């Protein structure tokens, strides 16, 4: 694997969606729009319910990428391809640094300590190499691991969750270390550069031939890493060879959940309710993945080839006395369990609700009493219902026909379920769940939210449900109380039991209304239902059907003015998360990474000064701001970024009220963000980006040249010289500033601000803009 980290398809869609939303809001074309503000933390950060970093923040995370780059460039020495190697170190250092500073890296915790211990074990025979390697766990659901030229090995949670034993982890580490040892990243970069430019032996190649060369080169590296990782590193340890070979199967079936169990089709059933068979797949699709797929246009050889090479290379080695676990089996199982729980969080964040629900189900089968799993399972149902009710985005989840294996049942159930049915099913499940202290507030919120949908969206009335219950009681058959039942004779009891059975069957127990009728009988549930009804009955109708077009326009205009003139709650404190700065020296898409990093450090200082001047308390969550003892802040960064990512996913799925700028559902990471907000005494999060363009602000004719042409005749008229001079001092550079302020308690966007100025990004310019924006927030004029 080479260093490059890429966005997955889901995140690219978020970028595109928000681009369109924010363009609409600003009513004008915006180059990058507010999506960029959110997108940087879309990169990969996901939440941790249970995984927190500990100890001091490693220096690799805190130091500037520019320093790391300078240090690497110093090692290049003389020889060919020096410029390409410099480019490589520039890009690789900054990409890796982005990941390290993103908040999604784990360090100091039990999981990463264990993984490092396995790394040390497998590299025991090579202490020199051991010293150069540093292993990090990444909070990402991708089943992936990668190494960098700097000696960092990154292993995703998604992969750790799939592993079967320690030997597989050891071989995985050996593979990645081999990439580093033989400089695969930099060599491949140089070779690809030569390939693209058609240098040397690649001069006469066409595009297709070049592609083939590229893929083959990459595959050779992977083969080498497999082979040399095995022979030079893994086999020198005492790990079991056969156990390690199964790693390839994990990679082959990486799309599947970490286990295969039948999903219980009676999951939603109760004594009086049975899920309609139309929501149940009679049988799930078989898994058809093959290991001998066509790898022509792939960077890695197919699994069959890799397995065969592995076996061939390990033939002469005995597996006798080799161990599956050396560091600790218990630690491995604990690590994997934590990874699996973390994975559920990651899936939910990404909107992969069916996958999350199935994964939760798998773990609950083994550990039913875990309160986190209980919360996760119920949240999945809540989210599924909300998505069904409000989302207008197509394909928020894969279609069930595309899913193989036993998890297909969940996809089918959730996709086929009627909106109203799913709402009631979710409410019932959540209501029946024992509430734990940590999550009771959120369970109550979910219940109230689902009841709101029943009342507002599905027009269900408590009175009607109560009437239905009463109607049942009025029919010929009446249920007896226990005391009355005990007074019956033996034969009367037998007759009564038979009638009761028939009566229950006649209740049309496939209808979700049956569930609701049972729920309403619970006075606590009824109380909540009635309070929701009361709240929505007192709200004025927004029905504009009877208004003429003119009246509608007047009404809309009045509302907009009222909204604009409304003084809102002043903001006294906020959290500034990962402010972004990018510098483009010309109007091309090439960002100047070193200048951007310098600019970012300046930006943090400028925002800080502006917030102090406007008496707004700004708390910065950015690795550039941290010191090595700020591990709690690093964890907070992860929490906020995770929540933000989830918010972005909801925006992408359009589960969002455009009038109130608020998401329509509680976020899964809300408990975490609430904890952080309470500690930091703020409710608001600011996302901020500055883009500075060194090129001319006008594309068609360079502005300076245009001014020069105009200046010549102007200078002939002396008295117009001032105008010429004035034009000369006016900048042609451009600076764009984007701010989005979000109320994290409510999940609503409270302010969006976009400024484009024809000016260099002087510190004072940035400070004055931020001061002005903060003043707006402070005075409630947003």
């Amino acid at each position: 694997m080479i260093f490059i980290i890429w966005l997955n398809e889901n995140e690219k869609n978020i970028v595109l969606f928000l681009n369109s939303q924010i363009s609409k809001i600003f009513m004008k074309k915006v180059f990058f729009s507010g999506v960029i503000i959110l997108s940087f933390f879309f990169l990969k950060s996901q939440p941790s319910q249970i995984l927190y970093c500990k100890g001091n923040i490693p220096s690799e995370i805190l130091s500037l990428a520019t320093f790391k780059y300078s240090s690497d460039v110093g090692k290049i020495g003389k020889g060919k391809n020096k410029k390409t190697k410099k480019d490589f170190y520039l890009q690789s250092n900054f990409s890796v640094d982005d990941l390290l500073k993103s908040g999604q890296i784990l360090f100091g915790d039990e999981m990463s300590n264990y993984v490092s211990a396995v790394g040390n074990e497998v590299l025991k025979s090579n202490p020199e190499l051991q010293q150069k390697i540093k292993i990090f766990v990444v909070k990402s659901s991708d089943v992936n691991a990668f190494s960098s030229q700097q000696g960092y090995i990154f292993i995703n949670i998604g992969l750790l969750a799939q592993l079967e034993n320690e030997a597989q982890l050891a071989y995985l580490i050996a593979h990645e270390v081999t990439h580093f040892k033989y400089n695969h990243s930099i060599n491949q970069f140089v070779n690809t550069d030569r390939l693209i430019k058609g240098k040397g032996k690649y001069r006469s190649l066409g595009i297709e031939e070049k592609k083939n060369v590229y893929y083959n080169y990459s595959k050779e590296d992977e083969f080498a890493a497999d082979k040399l990782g095995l022979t030079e590193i893994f086999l020198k340890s005492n790990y079991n060879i056969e156990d390690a070979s199964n790693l390839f199967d994990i990679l082959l079936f990486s799309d599947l959940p970490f286990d295969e169990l039948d999903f219980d089709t009676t999951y939603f059933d109760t004594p009086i309710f049975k899920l309609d068979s139309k929501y149940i797949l009679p049988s799930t699709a078989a898994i058809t993945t093959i290991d001998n797929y066509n790898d022509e246009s792939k960077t890695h050889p197919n699994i069959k080839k890799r397995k065969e090479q592995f076996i061939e290379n390990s033939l002469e080695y005995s597996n006798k006395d080799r161990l599956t676990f050396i560091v600790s089996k218990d630690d491995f199982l604990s690590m994997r369990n934590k990874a699996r729980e973390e994975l559920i969080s990651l899936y939910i964040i990404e909107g992969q609700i069916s996958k999350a629900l199935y994964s939760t189900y798998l773990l609950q089968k083994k550990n039913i009493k875990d309160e986190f799993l209980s919360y996760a399972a119920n949240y999945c149902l809540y989210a599924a219902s909300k998505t069904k009710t409000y989302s207008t985005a197509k394909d928020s989840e894969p279609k069930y026909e595309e899913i193989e294996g036993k998890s297909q049942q969940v996809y089918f159930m959730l996709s086929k379920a009627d909106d109203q049915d799913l709402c009631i099913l979710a409410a019932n499940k959540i209501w029946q769940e024992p509430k734990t202290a940590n999550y009771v507030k959120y369970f109550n919120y979910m219940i109230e939210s689902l009841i709101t949908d029943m009342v507002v969206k599905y027009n269900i009335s408590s009175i009607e449900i109560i009437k239905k219950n009463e109607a049942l009681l009025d029919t010929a058959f009446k249920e007896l109380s226990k005391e009355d039942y005990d007074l019956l004779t033996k034969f009367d009891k037998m007759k009564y039991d038979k009638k009761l059975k028939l009566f229950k069957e006649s209740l049309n127990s496939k209808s979700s209304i049956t569930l609701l009728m049972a729920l309403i009988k619970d006075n606590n549930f009824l109380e909540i239902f009635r309070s929701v009804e009361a709240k929505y009955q007192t709200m004025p109708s927004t029905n504009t059907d009877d208004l003429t077009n003119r009246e509608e326009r007047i009404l809309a205009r009045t509302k907009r003015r009222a909204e604009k003139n409304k003084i809102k709650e002043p903001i006294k404190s906020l959290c500034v998360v990962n402010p972004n700065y990018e510098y483009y020296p010309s109007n091309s898409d090439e960002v100047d990474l070193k200048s951007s990093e310098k600019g970012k450090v300046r930006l943090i200082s400028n925002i800080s000064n502006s917030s102090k001047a406007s008496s707004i308390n700004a708390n910065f969550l950015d690795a550039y701001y941290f010191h090595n003892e700020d591990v709690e802040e690093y964890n907070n960064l992860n929490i906020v970024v995770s929540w933000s990512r989830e918010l972005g996913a909801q925006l992408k799925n359009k589960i969002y009220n455009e009038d109130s700028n608020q998401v329509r559902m509680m976020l899964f990471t809300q408990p975490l963000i609430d904890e952080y907000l309470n500690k930091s005494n703020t409710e608001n999060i600011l996302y901020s980006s500055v883009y500075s363009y060194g090129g001319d602000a006008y594309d068609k004719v360079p502005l300076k040249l245009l001014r020069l042409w105009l200046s010549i005749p102007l200078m002939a008229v002396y008295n117009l010289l001032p105008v010429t001079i004035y034009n000369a001092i006016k900048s042609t550079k451009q600076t764009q500033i984007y701010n989005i302020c979000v109320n994290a308690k409510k999940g609503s966007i409270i302010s969006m601000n976009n400024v484009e100025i024809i000016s260099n990004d002087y510190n004072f310019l940035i400070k004055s803009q931020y001061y002005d924006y903060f003043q707006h927030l402070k005075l409630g004029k947003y």
Partner: protein
Amino acid sequence: MKYIQSLLLVFLFLTSSTHVNAQHSGYLGKKFAIGYSGNLGVGLNYKELLTKPFSFQYTNKVGLQYYASNRIGFEASYWFDKFQLPSKYNFNFHYKIQGSPVQTYIYQPEYLSDLKGYSASVIFYDKDYIAPVGTFTKLEIIRLDYSSSDKIQGTMSSLFIEANHKFGTSYYANIGFGKNWILYDKFLLSFDVEIAVNTNIKNAKGIFLPKYSNSHSSGDYISGNKYDIQIFYNSWVNEYLNNVMFVKYNFGIHYLFNPF
């Protein structure tokens, strides 16, 4: 003095109006700036383009700025300088001191005039900038009084021109285009280019069709008595000022503060 009072009253009114104070303007909350500007007027000598094409007139200014909103600022300034006309005419005076015969004196006055004045301006900052940062357009009314210097007291010149003699007053409508920079979050550096035109149109046309020459040319004699000389100077200085006021370059440094 009356004018200073009027200017200050207007300024105070503007700064104290509630509407204006409701804006959260200024650089990091600093809504006022006080400081110094140097105003360099560069006049083009149309009649002497080959010999002495430019005249320069440097004037000091101290001013107080107030940023009423994100886009608008106000400034009140006091102008002051001594100026010397760039070249000399020969004056041929016939004078008589009691007890002496009539004499002719060829006089080449040098250091003659004081310049004092006041101005009030409205500054419009360009879109998306927040006052006082960035580029701006300024509309200004300037009142300049020019009088003979008190330093000629006791010199030969005082025979022909009284000390502190007020030659005249001119009003100028000034438009400026400039840019501000901030230094250390405390100081405002500004540069603008200005074009000012005498509000008396009859005087203004003299810029392009000058009556008087500014360079030395022998043989030019102005004859007459003291009263005639003063009239002549009045016109000559007026034309000179109109010329050097027409195109000006203003450099300033101000200190930003908020007294409240």
